[in-house]
């Protein structure tokens, strides 16, 4: 960990990003913001507003039609909407995949995966195949897989959308614990306001297509955050404000 670094430049920064797809769909218009180390920034917006496109651009999977992104893509944490596990690999083998792709040697890989599996609370499940895991557990494997590389930037593309609410809240809390421990810069995409407020240091509201950042909220709560925070009046008030901006952005 490089906690001592005099890291002035933001870890991720979007500069006037716009995106028009070949079929003429305008997904993003003039999007600019940055995420610093130690920040957890969430973008909320209605479905189809181009939130995921933003992450694809950040990761280099898509090239923007205009604007630039400053980001170090060497070790990028990217958690997809689905767990995207390889079903012929056990939990351990799945977690070791990225290290394998980066030609990390076998012993080091084993050490990395052991740590990561323990971090996400899947100790004891190393030799299970994905087909015997629940949706929430698959998502944890996916998280552990990204953790092995100790990425300075973590991109989350609506990762917990497919699991039930109880599991989702639980995963939210675990992700925050990881965020505190690893100190990465987090960029999280969701359409759930309460998830956004609970997780983030900052919430950005994106409008319907073409996606633009229409409002920005600092979240005043410190970490660690307790599950009860969701029932705090402050929490409700902030959620209400974000909800209002979203509705304004929608029309």
């Amino acid at each position, binding site marked *: 960990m490089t906690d001592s670094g005099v890291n002035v430049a933001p870890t991720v920064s979007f500069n006037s990003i716009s995106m028009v797809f070949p079929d003429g769909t305008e997904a993003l218009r003039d999007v600019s913001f940055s995420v610093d180390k130690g920040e957890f920034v969430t973008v909320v917006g209605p479905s189809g507003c181009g939130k995921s496109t933003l992450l694809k651009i950040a*990761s280099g*999977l898509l090239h923007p039609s205009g604007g630039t992104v400053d980001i170090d893509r060497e070790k990028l944490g*990217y958690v997809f909407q*689905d767990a995207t596990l*390889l079903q012929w690999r056990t939990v351990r083998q799945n977690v070791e995949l990225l290290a394998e792709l980066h030609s990390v040697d076998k012993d080091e890989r084993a050490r990395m995966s052991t740590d990561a599996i323990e971090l996400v609370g899947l100790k004891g499940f190393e030799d299970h195949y994905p*087909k*015997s895991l629940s949706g929430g*557990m698959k998502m944890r494997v996916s998280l552990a897989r990204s953790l092995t590389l100790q990425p300075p930037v973590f991109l989350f593309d609506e990762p917990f959308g497919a699991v039930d609410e109880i599991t989702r809240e*639980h995963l939210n809390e675990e992700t925050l614990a990881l965020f505190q421990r690893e100190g990465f810069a987090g960029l999280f995409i969701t359409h759930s306001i309460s998830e956004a407020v609970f997780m983030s240091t900052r919430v950005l509201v994106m409008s319907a297509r073409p996606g633009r950042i229409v409002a920005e909220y600092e979240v005043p709560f410190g970490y660690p955050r307790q*599950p009860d925070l969701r029932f705090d009046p402050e929490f409700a008030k902030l959620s209400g404000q974000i909800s209002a901006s979203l509705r304004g952005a929608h029309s």
Partner: protein
Amino acid sequence: MTVEEHTPIGARSDGASADFETPFIMAPAVPKPGKSRLRLASDSILPPVVFGVFIIAVWYGISYVVLDADRRFLLRPPHDVWQKGFADWENFHELLNGLQSSAKVAFIGLGISIVLGTSLAILMSQAKSIERALFPYMVTLQAIPVLAIVPLIGFWFGFGFKSRVVVAVIISLFPIIVNTLFGLQSADRGVHDLFTLHHASRLTRLRKLTLPNALPAIFAGFRISAGLSVIGAIVGDFFFGKGDVGVGQLLRRYANFLKSEQLLAAVIMSSLLGVAVFLAFGWLQEKVTGKWYEHGGGEV
């Protein structure tokens, strides 16, 4: 999914996340209550046995009730087939030899199809342009009736063993190509993105993603083709009879001499060969992919 509802919420805050969901893990391993292993076995064996008895009964019915005595040669009753086709050692020996010859042709043909078909599919999966260039010709090859090119095959490869193998290959190649190609192309988009993000080479992607992902489909192709290769070997033998005598030649001989008992015995034996190869590949598939592959609709 009811387990979650019964889990006390408070159990979550201690961080023992794995415990929280442990019940899900156990679910697939626990056998259904109230059904012993024996009972399950009889459930799967009894219906086909009953139906088999029914078929034999109908067979007897046709031989003795439908057909008059002077026309009974059209369908001899089962015990006649048994006596002349199987119980008579000389005849059964001849049949086994023929079967061995045809099995050899089928295996070699299937082997060539597997190597050729899988390679072609991998080649096509590497670039859309290659797929577009090759695929129409694969379909054309598949669409040609073997009967129509029998003379050509004979001219080119002779009227013996080689031509029989060629027929087995022609008949069994296509399903392997189609299934393998389908399997190679069916890998999840997100996983492909993941490999792209981490700069995986073309070979790495093939080795670690598309090929293992295609295994279930590849084996589905192998199983279909295994049965087809037996058919191909017998059809090939039927037309190209030089050298040792295979099942095709036997069928021809029995038909010429109106030996319908032996004819039926030969038919039964060759279909048993097809079944055996099919089962063998099913077993192999289970060995290779059974541990991880989730069959469609497999969720309880």
